[in-house]
């Protein structure tokens, strides 16, 4: 049973709810990352985005990311909600909240979460422009979004 801290939704994300999921008496810090839909990429103007997910596996991969975070930063709680479907400019695509006993780890762990989402979670973004559309395939700029070898069975 995957934790209710990991969700894929189709309606607008309530960031406050995501934060509430990691509130904890032993937490001294909560860091959030909010991914929003941006209009310009280089000179290309996005009209809207469409996100698609392999939902049961995406949620499992969120839990895998939390395991990674636990092993590097013990005592951390992670919540991730990613939205799918059609998103407009400035919409929230993903919200991550991470709580830790001390603040240094919360920044680092939160960063780790978003970087890993872009590597191993089966979610895809299609950009729609005035004159075309394309599925994005490489959000790490230099390295394709593929899991590292040690993740393979």
């Amino acid at each position, binding site marked *: 049973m995957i934790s209710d801290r990991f969700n894929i939704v189709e309606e607008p994300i309530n960031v406050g709810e995501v934060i509430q999921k990691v509130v904890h008496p032993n937490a001294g810090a909560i860091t959030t990352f909010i*991914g929003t839909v941006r209009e310009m990429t280089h000179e290309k103007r996005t009209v809207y985005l469409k*996100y*698609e*997910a*392999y939902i*049961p*596996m*995406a949620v*499992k991969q969120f839990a895998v990311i939390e395991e990674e975070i636990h092993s590097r930063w013990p005592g951390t709680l992670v919540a991730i909600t*990613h939205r799918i479907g059609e998103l407009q400019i400035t919409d929230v*695509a*993903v919200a991550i909240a991470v709580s830790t006993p001390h603040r240094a780890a919360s920044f680092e762990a939160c960063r780790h979460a*978003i970087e890993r*989402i*872009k*590597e*191993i*979670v*089966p*979610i*895809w*973004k*299609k950009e729609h422009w005035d004159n075309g559309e394309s*599925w*994005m*395939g*490489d*959000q790490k700029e230099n390295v*394709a*979004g*593929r*899991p590292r*070898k040690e*993740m*393979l*069975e």
Partner: protein
Amino acid sequence: MIKILLFAGLKERVGKPFLTWEETPMTVAELKEELKKISGLENFSGIMVAVNETYARDEVIVNDGDTVALIPPVSGG
């Protein structure tokens, strides 16, 4: 029978959300070769394979009833 789920650009290129394959067991590598013939997809570089919602290397065996998914390079977040 196994189901092979397709997503994003792959789903659009093949024109369906999934394919099915009857012959099992076989390795992921062997399945990829068969899929090239039935899907029209020639190039699997950059495409990961998942078996039962876990990434799988080429040597993993796919059994009857398994759910396979072809995972093109991801772009979430």
